[in-house]
């Protein structure tokens, strides 16, 4: 046996434990496959598998119970194109609590090998059975649990693993491990092994409790490939200068814009905020909508201010732009007597001394109604130049249709 994969440390396992032969087979399979120790990253789980680190001259990582496959996946994802053989060693308890990680690694065909040492018990906590303990084993031990074990080989293979095998005899173990560690993609070797403390002494015939051996190879395993175009999120010089005049009378003005999902409330609020910046004002803008983003209300708040804005809350909004009944329901308890209301004529049950009702939906269509209502406010209040709004629209999506909506509105105003 070539010893270079292993250190000189004494094996710490109970006499007769399967982990001894498994470690020797791992070493043999790796050196026969041409790996040097530092070509290998061994990730050990918690349990008896977790005490193997000192035996290996490879890189070693020792993590949490059940998470060694996820931790190994992270190593592989971090490596990108660097060639390393990543191996996780885990017991059946770890595989039970970490089943999701195994399926995920198989589904993604992560380039690693999982050596799953199935001794059918939690050996370090008193010999409790796991999700991989066979029915015969449980029956033999008088455990009242007739539910079948996870067939981890079948599950992993179905999920997309490149190579899976269950080995009950140590005679073929080295050869199967060699197959696994030379496979590109996710490979699993489930090794049935005895726990001397909690398995053998209470079990008469070993052949009865193991699941049958398998060896499965996926001919078309999935490949990890992601190519994306990286785009800087901000351009330091992309800011908008103050191009237009604003005629804000007070220090600041707060708007609540209320409509329905899909009605362009958030995008119109953004355009309006940008128009504020183009008019030399400080602005803030935030949105609120239910978790069902495709239905129900959609509310935005915009503040325009001569000074820098710190606090963005709106204790008493100055203007309410209300487009739909959903939106009105959401904000109606915030409306106060000094507020100005601009509402679509379709909004029901709205009575306020300072309200203006216009059929914005007819003028601007479903998507353009909000921007029309904001343009209406701009015309009525003279808070900013209309060109600030149209310039802001031209920066964004749906510019043509929104500009058309605005021109419909200003046409009506001109006639009036």
């Amino acid at each position, binding site marked *: 046996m070539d010893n270079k994969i292993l250190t000189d440390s004494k094996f710490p396992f109970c006499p007769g434990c399967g982990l001894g032969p498994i470690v020797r087979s791992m070493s043999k399979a790796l050196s026969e496959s041409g790996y040097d120790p530092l070509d290998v990253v061994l990730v050990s789980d918690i349990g008896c598998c977790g005490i193997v680190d000192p035996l290996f001259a490879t890189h070693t990582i020792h993590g949490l119970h059940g998470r060694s496959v996820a931790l190994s996946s992270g190593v592989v994802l971090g490596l990108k194109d660097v060639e390393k053989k990543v191996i996780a060693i885990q017991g059946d308890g770890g595989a039970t609590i970490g089943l999701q990680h195994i399926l995920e690694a198989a589904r993604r065909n992560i380039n690693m090998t999982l050596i799953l040492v199935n001794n059918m018990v939690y050996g370090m906590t008193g010999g409790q059975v796991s999700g991989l303990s066979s029915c015969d084993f449980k029956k033999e031990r008088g455990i009242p649990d007739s539910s079948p074990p996870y067939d981890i080989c079948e599950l992993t293979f179905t999920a997309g693993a490149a190579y899976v095998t269950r080995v009950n005899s140590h005679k073929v173990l080295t050869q199967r491990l060699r197959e696994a560690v030379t496979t590109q993609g996710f490979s699993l070797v489930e090794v049935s092994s005895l726990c001397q403390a909690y398995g053998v002494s209470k079990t008469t015939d070993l052949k009865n409790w193991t699941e049958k051996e398998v060896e499965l190879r996926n001919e078309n395993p999935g490949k990890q490939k992601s190519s994306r175009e990286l785009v800087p999120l901000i351009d330091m010089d992309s*800011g908008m200068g103050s191009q237009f005049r604003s005629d804000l009378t007070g220090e600041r003005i707060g708007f609540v814009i209320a409509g329905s999902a899909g009605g362009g409330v958030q995008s119109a609020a953004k355009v309006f905020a940008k128009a504020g910046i183009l008019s030399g004002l400080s*602005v803030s803008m935030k949105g609120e909508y239910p978790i069902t983003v495709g239905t129900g209300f959609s509310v935005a708040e915009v503040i325009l201010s001569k000074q820098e804005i710190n606090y963005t809350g709106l204790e008493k909004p100055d203007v309410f732009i209300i487009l739909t009944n959903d939106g009105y329901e959401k904000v109606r308890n915030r409306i106060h007597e000094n507020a100005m209301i601009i509402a679509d004529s379709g909004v029901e049950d709205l009575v306020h001394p300072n309200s203006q009702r216009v059929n914005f939906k007819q003028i601007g269509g479903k998507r353009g109604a909000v921007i029309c209502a904001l343009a209406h406010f701009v015309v009525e209040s003279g808070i900013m130049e209309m060109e600030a709004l149209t310039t802001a629209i031209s920066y964004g999506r749906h510019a043509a249709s929104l500009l058309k909506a605005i021109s419909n509105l200003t046409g009506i105003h001109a006639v009036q």
Partner: protein
Amino acid sequence: MVKKKSKTLIDGSKIIVEGLVRAGADIFIGYPITPSNLFYRYAQNRFPTFHAAPDEISVLQWMSGAATTGRLPVTATAFPGLALMVESLNMAFAMELPMVIVVTQRLGPSTGSATTGAQGDLGLITGIVPGFDVPVFCPSSFEDCWELPARALQTAVELRTPVILLTSKEMVMTSRSFDLSALPRIDPVIPEIKGLHIPYQSYRAGEDLIAPLLSVVNEQHQVRINSSTHDLDGLIAKNEESLNVTRRLKTKINSRSEKLCYYEFDGAKTGKKLIVTYGVSSFAARDALKELRERGEDASLLVMKTLIPISAELIEIIESFRQVLFVEENINGQLAELIYGKLKKENRRQLNKLGEQISPTEIVNELV
């Protein structure tokens, strides 16, 4: 020629993601959660490597694995996700792996209200690795959203530790007009290997208490990373050497509390009334300070940008005031409790609110 001031409409998430990438963070592992949604979206097209993990336990495990290969990982989450990460975060802390975890606070407890902002997670984060300090930075402005992520990453690399960037929904999802051209340049953090002892031992630290981190990519030195109590080699051990490794996890961060201390102080260092706050409540506090001064009050403001570890310098400032008001958007005053514990003092008052931002008026009313 004086450069003409120009502004962009931008949210805090975008500034933070860009700041992290420019600082050298190169892999984002995400699991979607509100109100960290924007981080995930922006990271997809900005980080050199992006992976969507199937749950938050996997997120921290993948980040840890990637960190052993020399990558600088980032994720963004909220309380429910952070809660799932706790064991793995402890692992990363014990393994001494650099990474940045952005936590966007929302109303709790439990699933609470996903789209309502809050400042209620400090109580968990304070003890997230019980007895030890995971550095926590907390942006209180868009300038901070630019600079603190880079400092968080720098700290993670220099101190070989996970670092938390604690934000809130209002900080990262609300858009503001902001002058990007005034922001300072961010240089990438370059991990340095200082004082490498041969033969290499993964947990042997020099006088600076930091053990140089070699990646598992290297082919010269064996790297052993370990989450359990371990010796200098990185092997499981229970002896004086391994307990010293554990003790060092505390001292390497605590001994740098002054260096890691970032804050904004507006006022005289001994005075009458002091507002102490952090994160999103800082906006209201700044407005309140202005109004209090206009009313002739002797008021000062301390905005804490490093929440853990707490430096003696900050305690000194707080203690020098006759009247102190802690302003926090949570039910019990978690920063006040972090500093003073359950011991209530008459001149140390709290203004807390649940489910809604604290307004400048409310702060002013407490102090006039």
